[in-house]
């Protein structure tokens, strides 16, 4: 009988504590601060709009664009086939299948880079893979893809090739760009050169 009293003296207070405290539902970060700093410094999460545009144009099934702005902004304008996951809903269990998976290449974008990068940092620290950020966000997208600046006449050939590609992509994506007159510049040939997208698949060293 004595041992029951001893056991009770230990178990009941512990039970009371565990009954009184709220359940711990926090998701744990899996990268240490130093690992995170290393990843952020290399900036390898950023994907250039050119690569994304090429993927959209070629209907790459691997690409999943994710708009992390609010729903209103998403409804006003979003990139083709993008889905909307505002930052506030990021950890909603419904979105877990989208942001935590190993098949598609997720690319977050917002107006600039900051918001999308915040989302990327959270997903990265939770240990999710295959998530990237659109470099410069929609602003840079508009600047480069929808409204590319015509290179100077003295620019090297690849500047013109890039320009042609951007004009083509912009047209294919229904942007406002006009095709440059053929005579004005040495053209690289077809309107949409086959730019091989390079989704950055390399995992950071020292990850989980």
């Amino acid at each position, binding site marked *: 009988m004595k041992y029951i009293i001893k*056991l*009770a003296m230990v*178990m009941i207070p*512990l*039970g009371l504590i*565990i009954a009184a*405290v709220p*359940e*711990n539902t926090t998701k*744990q970060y899996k990268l240490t601060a130093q690992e995170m700093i290393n990843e952020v410094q290399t900036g390898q999460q950023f994907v250039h709009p050119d690569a994304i545009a090429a993927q959209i144009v070629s209907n790459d099934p691997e690409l999943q664009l994710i708009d992390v702005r609010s729903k209103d902004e998403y409804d006003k304008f979003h990139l083709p086939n993008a889905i909307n996951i505002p930052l506030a809903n990021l950890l909603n269990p419904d979105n877990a299948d989208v942001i935590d998976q190993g098949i598609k290449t997720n690319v977050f974008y917002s107006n600039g880079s900051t918001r999308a990068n915040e989302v990327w940092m959270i997903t990265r620290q939770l240990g999710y893979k295959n998530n990237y950020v659109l470099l410069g966000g929609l602003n840079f997208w508009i600047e480069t893809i929808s409204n590319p600046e015509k290179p100077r006449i003295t620019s090297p050939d690849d500047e013109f090739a890039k320009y042609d590609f951007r004009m083509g992509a912009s047209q294919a994506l229904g942007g406002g760009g006009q095709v440059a007159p053929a005579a004005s510049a040495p053209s690289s040939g077809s309107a949409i050169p086959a730019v091989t997208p390079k989704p950055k698949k390399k995992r950071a060293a020292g990850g989980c």
Partner: protein
Amino acid sequence: MGPLIVNEIIPEGLNLFLAFVIGIGFGFVLESSGFSSSRKLAGMFYGYDTTVLKVFFTAAITAMLGLLFFSLFGWIDLSLVYINPTFMTSAIVGGAIMGAGFILGGYCPGTSFCALSIGKLDALAFIGGLFIGVFIFAEGYPLWETMYKANNMGAPTMNTILGVSRGVFAFLLIIVALAMFVVGEWSEKKFPRDEY
């Protein structure tokens, strides 16, 4: 941090090795608590020895509190811990068969191996029966497959069924366990046996 294997903190291959080490520890504690004696185990049914109840419920509430505190401190993510699915029909039928076998043979499967390890012949006979049972179940599987898979309830936990938080349920279970220990002590005095 935890679970260690799900979070790839330790390799999966280490899993079986750890199970081996923990299993030996478990068997050692079972033996030293007297679980290798079929009379002691059967005492649970007749009321003259309730060690089984005390040991297993103490283990259960200790492990439960440990997991809940680990979760509170952020050392383990309980949502990643595997919970065995509940098949209600086969749980009831299997429980009845196991109980009948327990009172007939004086062992449960784990304790029979524990008793065999110290050389008990009745345990050897019990394990023989156990393998006959395994054989009948496997060979006759088509006959009871429907019943075996009936009433799948997923992986419910008692606290969600009762609608209370994990912690409150844990506290209630501790109270219930302690109350059962008191009843067990009373029963041992009420139905004593001098030698078993």
